[in-house]
């Protein structure tokens, strides 16, 4: 009985989320706001990806920014080559402006050899290559990393340490490889995503819809994944991997698969973020960013995909409003830190858990009221 109500409640929340996200441009006609909301939706996707690995697989990835950043840089390379300035560097083929600044005197103005490693950019002249790589690179990287970690049965805090170290390593690399990545400054002044002759200006309703539809699709796909038998078995490996093994499951294959899906979602989110924000920087590899994602998921509820997504959207909306004020901006990190500690200590299932408990309470009360009603009508009849 109460299970059916929970299922209904769950579906209602998903339906409401999708309807609101898709109908939002009808209510908000300020494109600057739509652009902002699109960014928060991308962060929602990141919260969801964390919930998938942390909440459902028990894998705490403190370096999710690695996959987000990889996805972001891949598409940014293509968009950089599409930008107007890249076509104006005195060559027949597009050359990113920073490569000229970094070039050795006398180097030919061509992607092949203008700077050491600039040839890596050659295939990115095709935009589809950047789009495909934004998913493929994070996925392949996660697959190799996951296969190594989980076949060796590394778990818990060690996974967190390894992923944390890797994202820092990536940050160093991307800053250090200035001739290829423009180092600390990242890739800015990007062109617009162009599909079928349509240019997707980040401040356009159509661009918002790319993000909105992507977020809804990822949400539904992830929900399907966790409701399959594989999703149930994955949760069993979180609770007791040894028992799953003795039931005959290849535990590592489940962990690798869902870790990789989570990374793929993060890479996809990175790509979408570049489309709406028009830059990719090494700050995506900052530890603070990766840890923020974990905080969003914890506050929203790590064992609920939509809870984690809503947590991310909520916290970012609040953060954006308080950052208008200088004092609050300073205090924000502290506030969010305290909130995180409180949630972990007193509300381990986050806002989603709170909502569930409230619903349970309402069901219980209405059930009791229903019985009382029935009793009083009976008494009246007598």
């Amino acid at each position: 009985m109460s299970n059916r109500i929970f299922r209904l409640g769950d579906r209602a929340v998903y339906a409401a989320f999708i309807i609101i996200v898709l109908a939002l441009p009808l209510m908000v006609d300020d494109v600057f706001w739509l652009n902002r909301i699109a960014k928060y939706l991308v962060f929602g996707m990141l919260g969801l990806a964390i919930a998938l690995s942390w909440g459902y697989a028990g894998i705490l990835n403190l370096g999710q920014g690695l996959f987000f950043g990889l996805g972001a840089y891949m598409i940014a390379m293509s968009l950089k080559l599409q930008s107007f300035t890249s076509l104006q560097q005195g060559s027949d083929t597009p050359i990113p402006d920073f490569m000229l600044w970094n070039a050795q005197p006398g180097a030919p103005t061509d992607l092949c050899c203008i700077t050491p490693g600039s040839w890596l950019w050659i295939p990115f002249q095709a935009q589809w290559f950047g789009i495909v790589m934004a998913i493929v690179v994070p996925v392949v990287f996660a697959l190799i990393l996951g296969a190594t970690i989980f076949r060796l049965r590394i778990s818990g805090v060690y996974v967190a340490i390894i992923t944390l170290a890797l994202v820092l390593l990536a940050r160093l690399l991307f800053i250090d490889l200035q001739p290829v990545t423009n180092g600390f400054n990242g890739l800015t002044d990007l062109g617009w995503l162009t599909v079928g002759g349509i240019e997707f200006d980040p401040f356009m309703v159509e661009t918002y819809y790319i993000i909105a539809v992507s977020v809804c699709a990822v949400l539904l796909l992830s929900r399907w994944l966790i409701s399959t038998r594989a999703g149930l078995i994955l949760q069993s490996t979180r609770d007791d991997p040894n028992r799953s093994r003795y039931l005959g499951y290849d535990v590592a294959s489940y962990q690798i698969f869902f870790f990789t899906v989570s990374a793929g979602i993060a890479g996809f989110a990175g790509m979408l973020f570049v489309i709406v924000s028009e830059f990719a920087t090494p700050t995506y590899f900052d530890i603070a960013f990766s840890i923020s994602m974990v905080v969003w998921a914890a506050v929203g509820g790590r064992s609920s995909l939509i809870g984690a997504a809503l947590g991310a959207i909520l916290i970012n909306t609040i953060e954006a409003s308080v950052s208008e004020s200088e004092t609050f901006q300073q205090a924000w990190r502290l506030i969010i830190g305290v909130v995180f500690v409180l949630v972990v200590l007193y509300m381990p299932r986050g806002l989603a858990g709170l909502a569930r408990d409230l619903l349970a309470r309402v069901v219980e009360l209405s059930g009791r009221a229903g019985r009382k009603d029935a009793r009083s009508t009976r008494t009246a009849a007598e």
Partner: protein
Amino acid sequence: MRAALTIEGLEVNFGGFKAVDGMTTVIDDGELRVILGPNGAGKTTLMDLISGKTATTGGKVHLFGRDITNRPEHEIARAGVGRKFQIPSIFRDLTVLQNLEVAVSHEPRVFRNLRLGMAAADRKRIDDVIELTGLDAVLDTLAGDLSHGQMQWLELGMLITQQSRVILLDEPTAGMTQAETSKTADIILRLKGTHTILVVEHDMAFVRKIAERVTVMHLGKLLAEGPMQAIEADPAVREAYLGSGGMH
């Protein structure tokens, strides 16, 4: 009678200490075998070696004629060996029903399990196990909220759902009340004949209730094997137990 499990000269060396040292025994298909032995006799280690938790340093384990020595745990499980641990090992954050659903393990890897729903035959199997273990009132309860006895029955139920042909039970009645112990004995007795069961147990009342053939281990070796009465009368067994407080 066909042999379900053949253990031949099994040995494990933990840096000089041989916890199991040349153990040999044959367990027939459908048999219920109790393993006794004083503390440190190597009973749990023997189960670890059979189920693949610990790698052997010598000897062989055959399951229905197939060599399963030192295979990975999930392969041994798929070959038909189910293991129940001393401390209940269940999925505490899943409901009782979900625990049993996970136990239906036809496919070991992830991709073939990317589907919804369950075959009618598997549903039927789960229903039978629910009936056998008497867990029907708590199907939607989180397994972590069950009583100790219910957890043990759930774990046992999962092994039956898994369709293990050989079930290894490590102290299934540890920490149980008299009534719970008696119900556990009933469940195990109902499995006799359809499943091959290997039980390590200290509770002698329980052992007398279920035992047919008994194997006694001492210092990692086979000490005696035979019917319960013969074992209780065996002077070598009495000697081994007297050394560690006698047989209760």
